[in-house]
């Protein structure tokens, strides 16, 4: 039995930065089942990136995630966290260095919000003042007032607030890696969208290495720097940036999984600020305006109902920076497709995971 304060000195603060995560030929077989749940899964998540594991049920995405913090035992292969095998670590010590968020959140109902967030720092034996300061910092980070919300019990929070507290609790000891198992799955669509945006904002600040499990391809495209698509039996179908997966699905399974509307989904990944616009030519004031931060998909949708009129793209100060028309967008899309389509002919047979996915696709 280990004592409660083993990690007192070399706590998670030993990692100032996010850590790289690597799965090497990971295999998981459950006793009594002939088919493995995970088959020879290899993937590398660079430090500070969000890797989304996505796939239909039975594809082992949650199992793969739980192998990382040893909630599930590996059958063979290895998982390296910051270059060090998780198998060398004492499981409970390892888990205190890995943030863990699950769909049902699992907040402790008998503890206040502040006590919930302080769970891992307490386990690590942090001094009281440090814990209190950290709790306050995290509550502010997730946009809750420490004075008002800290002493509340989980039953007194809304679903969205509970989810935020769950994320704050996982971040409490500043872990280098976060595991998130369908964290927004139980939230209604409108709040889910807000929570996704909030998490992306948070991630831009804290820059953790995140493994995010979902069955929703749209969520995967939105949240992921990289997406690992798993098929039944835990076989990796494709591992790449969202853009690359939408442009070049590795096979029919991936193409079907990402959906027939992948062309449109791709447009949601590019904002108007990223594309070449037509020069403004003194359009009348009745032209519809659109923010440069809007996606190409949104612009297309507006153009389809604009009766042939162009859209005026405006920057943060409401100045018109350029125009878009339907035919112009069409040209842009065709050009981009040409640029992306050519390499697929060469690479179509190879495993997508081996290809360097380049910089994360989300702007």
């Amino acid at each position, binding site marked *: 039995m280990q004592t409660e304060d083993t990690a007192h000195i070399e706590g998670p603060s030993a990692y100032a930065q996010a850590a790289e995560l690597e799965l090497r030929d990971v295999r998981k077989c459950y006793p009594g089942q002939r088919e493995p749940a995970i088959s020879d899964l290899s993937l590398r998540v660079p430090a500070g990136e969000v890797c989304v594991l996505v796939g239909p049920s039975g594809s082992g995405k949650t199992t793969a995630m739980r192998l990382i913090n040893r909630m599930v035992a590996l059958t063979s292969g290895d998982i390296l966290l910051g270059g060090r095998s998780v198998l060398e670590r004492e499981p409970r010590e390892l888990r*205190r260095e890995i943030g863990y968020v699950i769909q049902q959140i699992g907040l402790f109902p008998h503890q206040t919000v502040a006590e919930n967030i302080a769970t891992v720092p307490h386990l690590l034996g942090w001094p009281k003042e440090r814990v209190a300061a950290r709790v306050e910092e995290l509550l502010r980070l997730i946009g809750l007032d420490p004075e008002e919300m800290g002493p509340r019990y989980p039953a007194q929070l809304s679903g969205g607030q509970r989810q935020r507290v769950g994320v704050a609790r996982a971040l409490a000891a500043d872990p280098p890696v976060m595991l998130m198992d369908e964290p927004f799955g139980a939230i209604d669509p409108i709040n889910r969208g807000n929570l996704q945006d909030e998490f992306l904002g948070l991630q831009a600040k804290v820059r953790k290495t995140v493994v995010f499990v979902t069955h929703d391809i749209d969520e995967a495209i939105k949240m992921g720097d990289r997406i690992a698509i798993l098929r039944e039996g835990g076989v990796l179908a494709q591992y790449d940036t969202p853009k690359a997966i939408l442009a070049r699905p590795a096979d029919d399974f991936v193409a079907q999984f990402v959906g027939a509307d992948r062309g449109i989904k791709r447009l949601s990944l590019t904002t108007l600020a990223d594309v070449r616009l037509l020069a403004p030519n003194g359009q009348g004031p009745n032209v519809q305006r659109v923010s440069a931060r809007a996606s190409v998909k949104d612009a297309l949708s507006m153009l389809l109902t604009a009766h042939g009129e162009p859209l005026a793209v405006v920057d943060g100060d409401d100045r018109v920076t350029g125009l878009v028309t339907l035919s112009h967008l069409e040209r842009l899309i065709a050009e981009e497709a040409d640029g992306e389509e050519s390499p697929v002919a060469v690479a179509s047979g190879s495993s997508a995971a081996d290809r360097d996915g380049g910089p994360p696709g989300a702007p």
Partner: protein
Amino acid sequence: MLTALPLDAAGPVIPNFSAHSSSCAVQNHLFCVDWVKSNWGPVLWPALRQHVLLTLVAVAIGFAISMSLALLAHRHRWAERPTLLFTTFLYTIPSLALFELLVAPIGQNVFAAEIALVSYTLLILFRNILTGLRSVPAEVMEAAEGMGMTPRQALLRVELPLALPAIVAGLRIAVVTIIALATIVYTIYNRGLGVPIHSALGEGPFKTELIAAGGMAILLALFADGLLVATQRLLTPWTRARGT
């Protein structure tokens, strides 16, 4: 009848339980306050203290045994069925019979009395503690494990606090049951409120003593129950924090 005896009860008395000093008592009216006053010190108060002690010891030992068994059954499911069978069996034995059965091997003493009382707490406490431990939501336990709690930490910090309402519910039933049951301990061991109740019944019944001693047993049960409710409210503030 000794009606000629002076009513001056303040004099040095060797307590004579059957000697009713006042006319009220002699005529066996419904309730004689002066009898209660003069017999509080020698009869009722000691009986109450013995009664409380009998109950406390029985519930404490019963709780320790039940908690151990419930923790075992919580970790190892196989332990539940035999424990339930055994404690249910104990619970079904008629109390008077059990008291008498224990006298033969153990004798007419405090051990026989406590063993009998303890055996009636086990089923109630075991069931409630186990129900409480099992009522902890699976996702809460998954979060505890995923954050790196040891099984012992999860038990002390999460499972037991969350099981507290069910545990206290069990304690309330056990305490009230044992307070009632302890009134027949007198049959094998001359202690508790059962002693004055029994002697009152032997005299006609002597109403004042019956009402006083019986009433004290009832009030004791209500008081103990209230104390447990208050304790639970103090220990489980989260159960009242609902909604915003």
